[in-house]
């Protein structure tokens, strides 16, 4: 009789639907998927129903937010937070120099148009050493927590060099 082994980690603990994978794209370090697959490829599982004791954390490279508000990317950024019950959203490459934008175009204003400010904690910024005065700025990192977990956020900040290479909360 085989002795059951205790398994831990991501691969063995799947929840929700398993994503379709391209079988030709297995590699030594990635047994699920790679970028070489033809057409749409996925890695891991889709968002399934969220259980009550889960904290759902998402990391997303935005590939630059539009200067104008209510652009499609902005809508598709905030809607899934409500739709999929995302608790913590880690953002990269917002691509805007927030200091040079008007009040209505600030990150917090954008978030508040979609999310209840009473249960949203967010911080996004840019390289503060850049004084070129442009609206766009490559890079940037941010963090947003929503719903119950936002009430546990007690502080936030960035890297010590103030380049906003990372944001913590």
């Amino acid at each position: 009789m085989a002795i059951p082994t205790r398994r831990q980690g991501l691969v063995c603990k799947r929840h929700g639907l398993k994503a379709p994978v391209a079988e030709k794209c297995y590699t030594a370090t990635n047994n699920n998927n790679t970028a070489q697959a033809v057409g749409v490829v996925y890695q891991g599982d889709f968002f399934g129903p969220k259980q009550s004791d889960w904290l759902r954390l998402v990391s997303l490279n935005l590939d630059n937010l539009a200067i104008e508000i209510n652009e499609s990317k902005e809508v598709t950024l905030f809607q899934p937070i409500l739709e999929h019950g995302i608790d913590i959203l880690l953002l990269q490459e917002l691509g805007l120099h927030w200091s040079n934008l008007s009040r209505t175009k600030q990150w917090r204003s954008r978030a508040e148009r979609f999310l209840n400010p009473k249960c949203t904690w967010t911080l996004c910024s840019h390289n503060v050493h850049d004084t070129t005065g442009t609206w766009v700025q490559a890079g940037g990192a941010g963090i947003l927590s929503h719903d119950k977990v936002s009430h546990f956020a007690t502080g936030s900040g960035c890297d010590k060099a103030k380049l906003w290479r990372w944001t913590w909360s």
Partner: protein
Amino acid sequence: MVLQVVSVHRPCASSGGERTAWSQHKAHFNDQNDDWDPKKAFMEDLAAEIEEWIQEGDQVIVGGDLKQRDQRTSHQGVLCRPWNAQLDLLMWPSLQEDLSLTGKPRAYFKPKMLISLNVRHVNAASKLAPRIPLLPPPRIKSMLDPSRQES
């Protein structure tokens, strides 16, 4: 006990552009009379800060985008430092190399836009790492399209 959640973005190697993240960081380090490569500086500073948090007894989850050697790809990943254990690398094998971390990578990294995690029992931070299943759809579009999710 504090759970530190960190969103990181490492610039890709210099492409020659003046307004890239790499150029911005390089300009800043030059102003400081520092000849650091921004990518190396990123890893060293990040490692130092993570260590600082760990020394203080904090739990750390780091997620974000590490631009890799190939500038065209952006590697998303998350790592989690569980209670009383080595820094447990869930993704980012390359980050493990760069940070000289021990432990076997858990086989997930991908040049895609979106990674998601469901962390169970957040109140019991000591149980974070063994209970993290990975649920990463690649694009926001796919999240919004129910037909794709069902396929």
